[in-house]
């Protein structure tokens, strides 16, 4: 489970040897300390830059950062001993690609001063080509000026390239705001805070869309899920167990579901988070009803559903057997689809402290494809399709439906990959290492939070900017 290579290149003699040989040197990522969540929020002062037309919005945003007790600067000069904790670049005023040059070069001038684990976050506007409403009915693709579209979509390639330049565990991500969404909307602030903090350690090179100004800021940013009730399938181990722990840390009551055969591990995880263990096969016809019954009986409501349970049945398609293909689809996509027939109905989720949230596990295999994973790729891409389709109806009822797509994550499952391919998989990302289950869990906890109410129908990659797909 541990990355021995990462330890070697970060300590003592082996570290200097690796440097001389020019080997990849992955950094130890900045992660959240469960005993003091979000403290410190960034590893240094935060610089706010903007394009020429976005200065007012940059001021508003800077004022918001000050509310979090951050050391916010508008001047890119830095004293010798200091390093930037984060640079936020407000690009909401771009009307032509040339408008990007000034703020881009200004960002470039400070990158060498970025602290280890530092952050670059851009805020820009939705490109007309990237339709905010997944149903495509809002007509935003019509009549936009090509120069504006070019400028806005240009941020996409700019940001992803910046991310690939960064070192020492620093990441670059962007928030893409639909027209009309203010820079101080709850989900913009929530998203920004997530990307600035250690919670987003393994999210890199990603652009997350904020479609509406929905959602609310939590009373306590360190416990945004206080009072909400969440169910996590596949909670006995790996990513599911980490999700249970992070949701509980953020204040949620957790109901953990796993197959009866994994009941002992499930018990251990649930007792650790003071949750409730429900031994249940999610492929059962009445799985959703039984989950709902437990949640309502114990807590009166259910707010968050995390479809995490999944299996692997890897085989080249040429050698694929029907049972391997069908079993995988049954667990990984058919079961979440069937359960959502219940959970996505208006009035089923929510009613307590939290708004309705459905978050499903996709995978980079579902985006870029992966040799030997035709069944898995189909199911995980299916999750992305399901997420888009449900976003409209659930969104109209005040909720959100999103997905998280992990890349290479260090789990019992990936520990079974032979050492060399495993190391190559780690190096195949900008952060040059695998993520941890907690990294995926943090992204899920963010999407489950009240401050993410304006983010809907999205698939957020947690992959360290894996070099395949987007």
């Amino acid at each position: 489970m541990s990355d021995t290579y990462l330890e070697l290149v970060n300590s003592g003699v082996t570290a200097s040897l690796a440097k001389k040989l020019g080997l990849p040197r992955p950094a130890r990522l900045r992660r959240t300390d469960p005993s003091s969540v979000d403290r410190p929020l960034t590893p240094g002062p935060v610089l706010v830059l903007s394009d020429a037309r976005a200065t007012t919005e940059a001021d508003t945003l800077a004022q918001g950062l000050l509310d979090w007790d951050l050391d916010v600067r508008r001047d890119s000069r830095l004293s010798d001993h200091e390093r930037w904790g984060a640079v936020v670049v407000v690009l909401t005023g771009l009307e032509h690609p040339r408008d990007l040059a000034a703020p881009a070069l200004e960002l470039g001038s400070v990158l060498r001063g970025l602290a280890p684990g530092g952050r670059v976050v851009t805020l820009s506007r939705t490109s007309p080509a990237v339709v905010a409403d997944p149903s495509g009915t809002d007509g935003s693709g019509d009549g936009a000026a090509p120069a504006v579209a070019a400028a806005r979509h240009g941020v996409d390639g700019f940001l992803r390239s910046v991310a690939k330049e960064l070192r020492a565990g620093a990441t670059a991500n962007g928030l893409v705001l639909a027209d009309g969404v203010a820079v101080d909307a709850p989900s913009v602030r929530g998203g920004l805070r997530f990307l600035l903090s250690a919670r987003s350690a393994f999210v890199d090179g990603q652009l997350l869309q904020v479609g509406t100004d929905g959602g609310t800021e939590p009373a306590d940013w360190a416990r945004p899920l206080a009072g909400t009730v969440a169910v996590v399938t596949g909670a006995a181990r790996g990513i599911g167990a980490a999700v249970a722990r992070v949701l509980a840390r953020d204040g949620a009551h957790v109901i953990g579901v796993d197959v009866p055969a994994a009941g002992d591990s499930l018990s251990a995880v649930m007792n650790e988070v003071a949750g409730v263990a429900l031994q249940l096969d999610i492929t059962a016809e009445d799985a959703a009803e039984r989950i709902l019954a437990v949640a309502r009986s114990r807590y009166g409501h259910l707010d968050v559903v995390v479809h995490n349970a999944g299996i692997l049945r890897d085989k080249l398609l040429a050698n694929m057997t029907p049972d391997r293909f069908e079993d995988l689809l049954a667990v990984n996509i058919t079961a979440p689809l069937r359960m959502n027939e219940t959970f996505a109905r208006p009035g089923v989720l929510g009613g307590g402290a939290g708004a309705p949230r459905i978050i499903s596990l996709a995978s980079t295999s579902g985006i870029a494809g992966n040799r030997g994973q035709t069944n898995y790729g189909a199911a995980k891409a299916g999750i992305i399709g399901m997420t888009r389709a449900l976003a409209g109806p659930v969104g109209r009822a005040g909720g959100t439906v999103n997905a998280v797509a992990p890349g290479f994550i260090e789990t019992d499952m990936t520990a079974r990959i032979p050492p060399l391919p495993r190391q190559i998989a780690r190096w195949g990302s900008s952060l040059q290492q695998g993520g941890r289950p907690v990294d995926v869990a943090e992204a899920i906890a963010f999407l489950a939070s009240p401050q993410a109410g304006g983010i809907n129908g999205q698939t957020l990659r947690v992959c360290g900017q894996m070099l395949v797909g987007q």
Partner: protein
Amino acid sequence: MTSTPSTQAPRAAIIGSNRIPFAKAGSAYAGASNQDMLTAALEGLVARFGLAGERLDEVAAGAVLKHSRDFNLARETVLGSSLDPRTPAYDVQRACGTGLEAIIGVANKIALGQASVGVGGGVDSTSDAPIVVSDRLRKALLRASRAKTLPDRLKAFASLRPRDLAPVAPDVAEPRTGLSMGEHQALTTARWGITREDQDALALASHQNLAAAYERGFFEDLLTPYRRLTRDESLRADTSPEKLAKLKPVFGKNGTTGGPAASMTAGNSTPLSDGASTVLLSSDEWAAERGLPVLAHVVDAQVAATDFVGGQEGLLMAGAYAIPALLERNGMTLEDFDLVEIHEAFASTVLATLAALEDEDFCRTRLGLDGAFGKVDRSRLNVTGSSLAAGHPFAATGGRIVGTLAKLLREQGESEVRPGQRARGLISVCAAGGQAVTMILEAA
């Protein structure tokens, strides 16, 4: 004896249960201690009902085969669990009735208002059974431990002879008769003329019923896997009358029993096994506050014992005395029950108990009744299998049966035999020392 408990009397509610699968002796749990297994069963219960960090009013549990290191077993188990360490606990022992007795203790405290919530349970390991050393070796060891110098310590062992070093093997023989439980039951089997065919048929039904219950997912919320075991290890879903008929008798072979030929085999006797079970009980108010549905209520309980030493009655026949006493006090007959759970120490124990209750002469002379007490409808007996198939870790059996029956009663809800009323179930567990523990449950 004839006073009827008021129907208004508060009754303890059974919220649910958890056990680990029962393992064959010397198998999956061979490396686990009583405390390990009881902790696993309790942790599963805590997780099922989200009780981590909660302070319960009482935990009662016990084991039959107990190491001296199992001192304060229940309390030590609580301290090793996720419950609030301020949860008090005590140990109980009534041989195979230990688990049921522990549950009665907790239920009574709840009914009396002395507790709001508690856990009753039990555990036994025949694999990790305590080894007793000879008296001479034990005395030498104690002397050596008190000695202050090495020569004194060595002197303490000087008087030992090689034969003193042989351990005294644990057995299940009755101290007062020297007969094993199986040999005792062989006497009863012969006395009541219980046939091999009837015993094998009961054993077969136990396996088939238990297998079917697993098949329909009945144990999903009753059982938590442990040490890679997900099902009771003794269960043979594929057994058949032919396979059972092939087994050689193991008890009653010495011919002293007279009557029919020896008929008790490994197939119709409970296997030695390891396991643990726990049951969560509370007041209705406690359950309602936490949104926990109640499965059933404890109506009443009764124990009895026989004079088996004097040969007046069989070692495992006390159920035939406890059941009529319990039912009479509650103004009930065997026809009032939708479900009956009689622990199968041996298939012939159940058959002899049923035969006695149906026997006019027995009921008149031994129970002082006017005639036969009644007949148990066999289709209502041990409907999801019992000890023959599941195994019988002595003190864990009571919790297994209470957990199973409470869920069955909840599923049924309304009684079939008494339309418009709640379904009722009867439990009887025989125990060493000529004892039996019985209990009535009613669907919530």
